[in-house]
């Protein structure tokens, strides 16, 4: 201690160094050591500073895959008008990997492959190798698969809870409800509508976690939907048809009560939903629907005053336009009255009727009926009609009986509702709508008197014993009225004699129509050898069957007491 104390005295130190240290003073070394102390202090402070910097740094995005992103895709339930669930979310586990935390990708890949043999082991290995922070391995595992993988105890893999859409009704309302993709985003049908309309914005804003979303109520009735689809399927089987579609509309509100198109798909497993023949034929397919169009021809004739119930039309010979000739299918070869033209479905008669209005008049009316423009509905799958570019006299003549113009069945049903409900065209909807809301939207397209006349003709056409083409659609007690349509399909640029697109357009009860039913059946064959295959033999009875089963559910009371006092029993 004494030595150290002495050395701090400069004069003493200098004196001693002069004696014993010829070259260097110990003070120089002490100064140098103090400099070294300074250096080390700075260096270690730098280490501490660096550590503090790391401590302040935000955590790396190693496993920071936003787990809520999976849950953020919650969707509202879709329910029918009675609250029956059409679509709902169920929670599923999805498997992900964190390759940077996996220290043996080979072993992990083999083990996962053992539980999920449908995954390719090489792909798995490639996914699990590397320095990525997050990679999906398999979406939507069953609870059993999840348990098995969990039991493997592989580090660096994990599960995220995701929402999976489930459709309890399977394919019952597939086209209408639509489908979602693996990220639970609506890509078709009302599911897509909900996304486009508000759900995507809600998700973007970070809301919509699922449970707190109000169910979306649709206008359809699941029971009626089932009946319609079931009858369409039976029709396809019975008449060996390629396809069938149908729609039931509320005539006063425009609500779609049921809509089906076969073949369809299972939205729970929509592997085949994009096949061309599985499109929604009701709204996304435009067809030359044939004679059902005659109802529009009659409506415009009556409404313009150019045709009355007492007029006659010469159908004794085909109508010639240059090298073309228009024939009648059920040719009577005589002069027909206005109702006869309707119930015998005379092409010549309706062509002559349309010619009285001329192309301009016809076009104006079709425009008013909404048949020349793309209809606006919630459903994203809507086709525009195919309208002739040149509208000559012959065009007018063929359009009069539904050829030369292709429209969607939904458009036809909507326009037909206007013809029977007193002349009000109401845009269709898949959401519930009250009478007041419908009245606000309604556009008067024909006079109420025109509507009365059409109803009379529709009724006449179905009424048993009158020889009308739609008599097989009659349902006792429900006063069905309707019009058949037997269209020849275009094949290789010509109208085919054997391939038909048959339809039946009906309303019931026809004295005060509540609902409009349209059924279209594609390429039906004769039920039995020797029988025909016209619409009256297949589409009409299918509509009859639908009404028989669905009318009571739709709340239409049967009138078992007929005016003559006889009591009818529904079969």
């Amino acid at each position, binding site marked *: *201690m*004494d*030595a*150290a104390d*002495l*050395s701090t005295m400069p004069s003493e130190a200098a004196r*001693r160094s002069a004696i*014993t*240290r*010829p*070259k*260097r*003073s*110990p003070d*120089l*070394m*002490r100064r*140098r*050591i*103090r*400099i*070294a*102390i300074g250096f*080390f*202090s700075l*260096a*270690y402070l*730098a*280490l*501490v500073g*660096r*550590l*503090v910097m*790391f*401590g302040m*740094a935000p*955590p*790396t995005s*190693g496993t920071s895959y936003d787990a809520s992103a999976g849950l953020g895709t919650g969707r509202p339930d879709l329910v029918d008008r009675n609250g029956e669930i059409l679509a709902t979310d169920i929670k599923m586990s999805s498997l992900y990997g964190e390759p*940077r*935390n996996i*220290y043996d990708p080979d072993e992990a890949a083999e083990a996962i492959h053992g539980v999920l043999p449908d995954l390719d082991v090489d792909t798995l290995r490639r996914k699990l190798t590397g*320095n990525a922070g997050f990679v999906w391995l398999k979406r939507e595992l069953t609870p059993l698969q999840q348990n098995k993988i969990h039991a493997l105890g592989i*580090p*660096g893999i994990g599960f995220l809870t995701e929402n999976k859409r489930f459709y309890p009704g399977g394919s019952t309302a597939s086209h209408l409800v639509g489908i979602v993709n693996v990220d639970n985003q609506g890509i078709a049908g009302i599911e897509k509508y909900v996304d486009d309309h508000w759900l995507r914005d809600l998700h973007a804003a970070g809301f919509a976690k699922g449970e707190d979303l109000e169910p979306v109520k649709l206008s359809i009735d699941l029971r009626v939907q089932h009946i319609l689809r079931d009858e369409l399927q039976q029709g396809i089987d019975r008449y060996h048809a390629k396809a069938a579609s149908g729609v039931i509309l509320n005539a006063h509100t425009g609500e779609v009560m049921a809509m089906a198109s076969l073949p369809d798909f299972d939205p729970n497993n929509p592997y085949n939903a994009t096949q061309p023949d599985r499109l929604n034929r009701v709204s996304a397919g435009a067809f030359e629907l044939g004679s059902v169009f005659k109802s529009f021809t009659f409506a415009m004739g009556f409404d313009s005053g150019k045709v009355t119930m007492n007029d006659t039309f010469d159908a004794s010979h085909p109508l010639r336009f240059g090298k073309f000739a228009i024939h009648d299918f059920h040719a009577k070869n005589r002069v027909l009255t206005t109702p006869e033209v309707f119930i015998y479905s005379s092409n010549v008669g309706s062509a002559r009727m349309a010619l009285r209005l001329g192309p301009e008049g016809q076009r104006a009316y079709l425009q008013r009926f909404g048949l020349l423009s793309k209809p606006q509905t919630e459903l994203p799958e809507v086709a525009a009609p195919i309208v002739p570019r040149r509208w000559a006299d012959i065009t007018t003549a063929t359009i009069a009986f539904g050829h030369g113009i292709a429209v969607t069945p939904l458009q036809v049903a909507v326009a037909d509702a206007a013809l029977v409900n007193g002349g009000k065209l109401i845009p269709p909807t898949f959401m519930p709508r009250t009478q007041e809301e419908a009245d606000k939207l309604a556009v008067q397209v024909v006079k109420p008197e025109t509507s009365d006349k059409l109803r009379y003709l529709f009724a006449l056409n179905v009424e048993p014993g009158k020889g009308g083409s739609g008599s097989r659609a009659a349902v006792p007690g429900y006063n069905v009225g309707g019009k058949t349509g037997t269209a020849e399909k275009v094949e290789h640029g010509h109208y085919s004699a054997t391939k038909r697109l048959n339809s039946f357009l009906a309303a019931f009860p026809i004295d005060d129509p509540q609902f409009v039913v349209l059924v279209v059946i594609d390429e039906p064959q004769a039920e039995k050898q020797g029988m025909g295959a016209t619409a009256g033999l297949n589409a009409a009875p299918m509509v009859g069957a639908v009404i028989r089963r669905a009318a009571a559910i739709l709340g239409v009371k049967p009138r078992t007491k007929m005016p003559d006092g006889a009591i009818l029993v529904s079969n």
Partner: protein
Amino acid sequence: MVSRADRSRFAEWWWTVDKFLLAGFVGLMLGGVILSLAGSPAVAERLGYDSFHFVKRHLLFFFPALAVLVGTSFLTPRQVRRVALVVLVVSILCMMATLFIGIEVKGARRWFNIFGLSIQASEFMKPAFIVIVAWLFSENARRTDVPGNLFALILLGIAVSLLIAEPDFGQTMLITIAWGAMFFMAGLPWIWIAGLAAAAVGGVFAAYVALPHVAGRIDRFLTPGTGDTFQVDTALESIVRGGWLGRGPGEGTVKRILPDAHTDFIFAVAAEEFGIILCICLVMVFALVILRGLSDSLKSDDGFVRLASAGLVCLFGVQSFINMAVNLHLMPAKGMTLPFISYGGSSMIAVAFGMGLLLALTRRGREPRRIVAKLASPIADASAATVA
């Protein structure tokens, strides 16, 4: 407790040794055992050993290392010099032999096997080298007839050439820095310092140009994102993942993919599992040991003791700094262990040997008291101190 009146060798040691430094070293060794539990099982499993292979071996070396630390600290400065000379000669011979009979690991011949232990001779060479260089520098300062500085330079040349032959760029750098620091502390004129600094820069540049793997490491440090920076990136990630408080013992996951998690990158593993706060504590322990060692050296009146102890502290401090700086991405990647903490049998005993020498050199009040016991005169005391 040991009585102050006790005149046994142990009692004398107990009252003269710097217990603060001793506690620091033993604390670091114990910390090394605990961190070995965190860092080494993953590596052991990866190499196909049983999980606690390295932990067991770490413990196996813990007690010999402690014995070497304490045993060496009993030496007197004169004995320190002699032991260092013997160890230096033996280790240089071993290093020469290693070049021919050594085991090649990752492209370098640094180890040789003896009695089933793999020994890295350069680890033992370092502290002995420091002591001998300190002696040469101090002799140079004391006596004009001995060209101590020249011998020190020749000795550096021998050590550096042997290390480069292995090759071991990190140790070369460490030895050169320590040698330079000692030369600096010995009183090198500033003009020389500037010259040597230029030479050092030139040397690094030459290494950059001549040795591709050195160039690669420096390039990767300067331009992150190019080439393979897996080790350093992974180390950084484990530090950041740990956060302030760490993920908890055994909860680290990055260590599983971090190469050399039990040796060069033990610091990063410590950060992931025990947190940045503990790492700061670890840095503080190292810093305090270094500052204590240097201030101890200030107190000595003997030029050799002063220079040798400061040199040993520099060796220890620079090595620790480089290791932690690499872990924290403040320096290019360099294979350097963290003294007392990293796994490595011969390395741990060598560090214990070096720090035992430091403890021996920094024992205080020994000579004065012995002299006081003989001649109870302050004047005699002062004169005795100057010639000791």
